[in-house]
């Protein structure tokens, strides 16, 4: 039987699955647990220029049909990532994309410039869903002009391909995707957590200290399918799907909607062995009976 492969940036993978940013660390824990089978690539947690403690707890609450997180981009900063974490990540059995976040346009490029000194990352994922603190606090992704400028700044310092991770919360996602392509992005990730909030109606008290957080759930699937479909019609670069995967059919549906690769986030927190579980299901579905 012919082996099925998926490809991204000229590389071939025998799985379409990537582990979504913020839900897999740098892949090191899963590697120790022996649970990276079936995974094509790991996307790291967000890395910023300076270390960030992150938000005060609670950082996660469960809702009726999903979860809200308020991690606040906790990370040890790019210096530590390059000096301490990436050398360990060199031992990963799969490639690593480093997810990059910032509070100003130039910060993304500064982080990438530092990451360029490490041989380890295969690529970057530029998270424009975070607030543009330097220019009023709206997400970078809210404005196509800002998305294009951030992409251009990153492209200017990067020798590696990068995907721009778009926000579903602000702006027109197809316009932002085109702007990323225009700015030199090699892919777009569609998309990210949805702004959400949970409160106790009796007391009015929000469940998260920061009141609002990022909502993710298997229930996001149709929202991601729609966005992947719309974006893949609007751009000529690969689309990486993120949001709502909890089973092999979800992955195949996102691929059918136009995704080149599919990320697994929340489901991985429940099933650290999601890579091999999903992959087995996918192969059973696309080539039944084959082994």
């Amino acid at each position, binding site marked *: 039987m012919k082996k099925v492969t998926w490809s991204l940036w000229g590389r071939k993978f025998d799985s379409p699955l990537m582990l979504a940013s913020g839900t897999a660390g740098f892949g090191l*824990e899963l590697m120790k647990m022996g*649970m990276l089978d079936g995974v094509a690539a790991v996307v790291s947690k967000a890395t910023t220029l300076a270390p960030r403690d992150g938000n005060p707890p609670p950082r996660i609450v469960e809702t009726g049909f999903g979860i809200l997180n308020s991690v606040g981009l906790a990370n040890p900063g790019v210096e530590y990532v390059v000096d301490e974490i990436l050398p360990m990540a060199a031992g990963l059995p799969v490639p690593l994309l480093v997810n990059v976040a910032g509070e100003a346009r130039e910060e993304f490029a500064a982080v990438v410039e530092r990451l360029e000194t490490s041989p380890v990352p295969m690529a970057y994922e530029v998270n424009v869903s975070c607030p543009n603190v330097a220019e009023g606090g709206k997400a970078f992704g809210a404005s196509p002009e800002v998305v294009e400028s951030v992409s251009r700044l990153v492209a200017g310092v990067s020798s590696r391909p990068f995907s721009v991770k778009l926000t579903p919360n602000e702006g027109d996602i197809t316009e932002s995707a085109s702007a990323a392509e225009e700015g030199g992005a090699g892919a777009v990730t569609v998309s990210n957590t949805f702004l959400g909030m949970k409160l106790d109606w009796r007391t009015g008290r929000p469940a998260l200290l920061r009141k609002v957080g990022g909502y993710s759930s298997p229930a996001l699937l149709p929202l991601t399918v729609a966005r992947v479909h719309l974006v893949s019609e609007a751009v000529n670069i690969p689309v990486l799907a993120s949001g709502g995967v909890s089973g092999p059919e979800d992955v195949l549906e996102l691929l059918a909607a136009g995704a080149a690769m599919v990320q697994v986030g929340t489901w991985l927190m429940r099933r650290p062995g999601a890579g091999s579980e999903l992959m087995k299901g996918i192969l059973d579905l696309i080539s039944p009976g084959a082994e």
Partner: protein
Amino acid sequence: MSIDMPAVVLAREEVLPGIVRITMEAGDEFLEEAAPGRFIQVEAPGGIFPVLRRPFTLHRVEDGAFSILFRVKGRGTRKISEVSSGDTLRVLGPLGRGYRLAGGRWLLVGGGLGAAGFPFLAARIESGTALLGASSSDDLPDAGVADTRVATEDGSVGIRGLVTDLLPDVDWHEYSNVALCGPVAMMKAVIKAVPPGIRERIQVSTEARMGCGWGACECCSIPAAAGGYFKCCTAGPVVPAGDIDWSRWEETD
């Protein structure tokens, strides 16, 4: 190496009103890794919501089996509590770091179901005394220690009062280790009452709202004495009391 496996339920008992003990079959690999203070992540059966697993400390580990003890609080614990013998629960673990099992006599101080992990600890130490606080006899778990002293708020068993009211009678020279688990305010009060010399030897079994349970998602953060946060799931759940920034922890608890 931790494993994700379907574990066969051997017994399900409601040991106290609303407090359930579930005993499951354990494989050799699990038994080898199991240690007092380590925990497991259990999936709620029947559908994909709640999507996150629920963490439980190892309550007892013996005779090829392990058990968890918990209060039925929300949807997740309710679904898990509704299993019967012969069913399976999906279990990931053992996870995290447990107690440093130093020799000498132990003092086990627990508030409410904070004592859930004491029977396993008691089975692995030379000898010890348990001090337990609870609101009433209805929520007082067994610590698995012959010398157990109790304080209840309603006086239904033991002395009427808080676990801290049991501390003045402790002969501190007898003990070289302290295990502490319970509500943050209670633990803070206990630490204050422990004399220097042994205070540095208190090991706290921490709890936090947890995401993955294996170190990736940064959700179960606890304020660290050194600044910032540490991850309950991989730096803990058992940490030296001195590693915690108690005032920040109490604020966010």
